């Protein structure tokens, strides 16, 4: 299979898997216990915590809290801020956030919070000035994603962080605006430095960088209060009870180490492949366009809209050719509406239905992309032959 859906999930690295197995088979002790074997598990988790902290340039490893997923990290961060805050009820976010952020914000709106959903430009970008202008006296939280999961656009997080820091200088310490970023698509793929970005909280997920599914983390800057998510044992410094997913955590620690070591070379390699892929597709297929920012985008993300056709059909035909990809069409989102991200960047509904996301990974080769480039024009052509919109377009362009 040609796997071009690395933004959905990545293949677990075999060497990571081998390490994980040790912590299930031999080193199965509960890290909270007292004997030596338990100590080993505890130490292995501490090491993983240090590795995650180092990967995002956190000052202290105890600013890292392990979770069960990126979604959990996001929920925890946002709900913790509103739960620990009494000085306001206003949240600022963007229209292109992952549904986890949007649904959490909508949930909070029902609880009486006000949420500003910032619009984005044609590339899916907000700028720091927009955030600055949206800040109210009662603003308690700004949540902006670092890199978009659908179109790959990288947001100016550092600039936004600076603006928020400036506003915070005029506020009492207890009334600071907290800045959260969903960096799930970014960590392990592009440099992330919590201090340079000026973020207070950051969510990440292991399975996006070749670690197992079922493990993520939340970074919480020292001094920022974190509400206990699961009351119970003393795990995660009393904030998230439950015996830890030791093997998953160890696996994530190992995987981030490997990702960091390869990052620079992978950025160069994937960016080249990505640009080759985009250029070839746009050249070979008429009425196609790139979604997202042409340069400020994730190295592995290509998102292209093909007019007059619907995305699910493309995915089924690609699958028939043993190529895995994804789309922003309603049919693949489990709802009747196409991607909110593509609508937010200004695409029409039918264009949003006809998008294809190709996300590259560390194992993606040029040959694989060439195979895609070979079959895709025929697939698009076949679907256009079936499409009444294409028929209309051709009829109108003839007369």
């Amino acid at each position, binding site marked *: 299979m040609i796997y071009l859906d690395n933004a959905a999930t990545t293949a677990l690295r075999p060497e990571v898997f081998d390490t994980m197995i040790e912590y299930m088979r031999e080193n199965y002790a509960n890290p909270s216990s007292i004997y030596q074997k338990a100590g080993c598990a505890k130490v292995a988790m501490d090491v993983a915590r240090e590795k995650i902290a180092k990967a995002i340039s956190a000052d202290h490893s105890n600013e890292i809290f392990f979770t069960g997923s990126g979604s959990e990290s996001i929920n925890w961060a946002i709900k913790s801020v509103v739960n620990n805050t009494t000085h306001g009820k206003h949240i600022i976010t963007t229209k292109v956030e992952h549904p986890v952020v949007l649904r959490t914000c909508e949930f909070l709106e029902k609880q009486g919070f006000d949420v500003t959903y910032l619009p984005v430009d044609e590339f899916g970008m907000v700028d720091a000035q927009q955030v600055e202008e949206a800040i109210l006296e009662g603003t308690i939280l700004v949540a902006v994603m670092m890199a978009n999961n659908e179109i790959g656009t990288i947001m100016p997080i550092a600039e936004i962080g600076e603006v928020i820091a400036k506003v915070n200088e005029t506020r009492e310490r207890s009334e600071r605006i907290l800045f959260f970023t969903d960096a799930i698509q970014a960590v392990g793929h592009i440099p992330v430095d919590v201090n340079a970005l000026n973020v207070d909280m950051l969510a990440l997920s292991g399975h996006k960088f070749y670690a197992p599914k079922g493990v993520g983390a939340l970074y919480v800057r020292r001094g920022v209060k974190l509400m206990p998510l699961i009351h119970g044992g003393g795990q995660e410094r009393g904030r998230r009870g439950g015996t830890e997913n030791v093997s998953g955590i160890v696996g994530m620690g190992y995987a981030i180490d490997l990702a960091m070591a390869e990052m620079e070379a992978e950025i160069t390699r994937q960016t080249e492949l990505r640009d080759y892929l985009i250029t070839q597709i746009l050249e070979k297929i008429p009425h196609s366009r790139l979604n997202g920012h042409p340069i400020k985008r994730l190295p592995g993300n290509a998102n292209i809209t093909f007019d*007059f*056709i*619907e995305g*699910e*059909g493309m995915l*089924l*035909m690609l699958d*028939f050719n043993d190529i895995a990809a994804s789309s922003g*069409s*309603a*049919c693949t989102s*489990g709802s*009747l*509406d*196409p991607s909110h991200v593509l609508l937010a960047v200004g695409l*029409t*509904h*039918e264009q949003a*239905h006809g998008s294809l996301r190709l996300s590259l990974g560390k194992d993606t080769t040029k040959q694989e992309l060439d195979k895609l480039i070979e079959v895709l024009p025929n697939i698009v052509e076949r679907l256009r*032959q*079936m*499409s*009444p*919109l294409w*028929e209309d377009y051709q009829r109108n362009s003839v007369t």
Partner: protein
Amino acid sequence: MYSEKVMDYFMNPRNMGEIENANGVGLVGNAKCGDIMKLYLDIDDATGIIRDAKFKTFGCGAAVATSSISTEMVIGKTIHEALDITNRSVTEALDGLPPLKIHCSLLAEEAIRSALWDYAQKKGIKIEGLQAPESTDHHHHLNDEE
């Protein structure tokens, strides 16, 4: 996710295309929701038998498959027999559809009715049991409320 039959009708759609002098054409759905189906019918005026049917569809695999199989289901039928085709019979003919895709089968039923209505309008006749098509996307609203 799809039955083998749905995949077969999607990958090898029967009766895809246009009928140049179709005397009944139905266009239903809307791009907002991601499905548009156009159905062409060639109906014998004397016997009221549907001689040929073709379709074009903008939509997902299920939308294409339901469009295609409904053309097969109407060919050779009289107008009145064609009116008996329901979303349920279309879904059954495809060995079922995932729950989220049931609205695609409603689209097929509507397209048949819409094409027959177009035929009746053109011929100035009244077809018993057939009313003017409603707003083409009402089934989506129904679906939303589920």
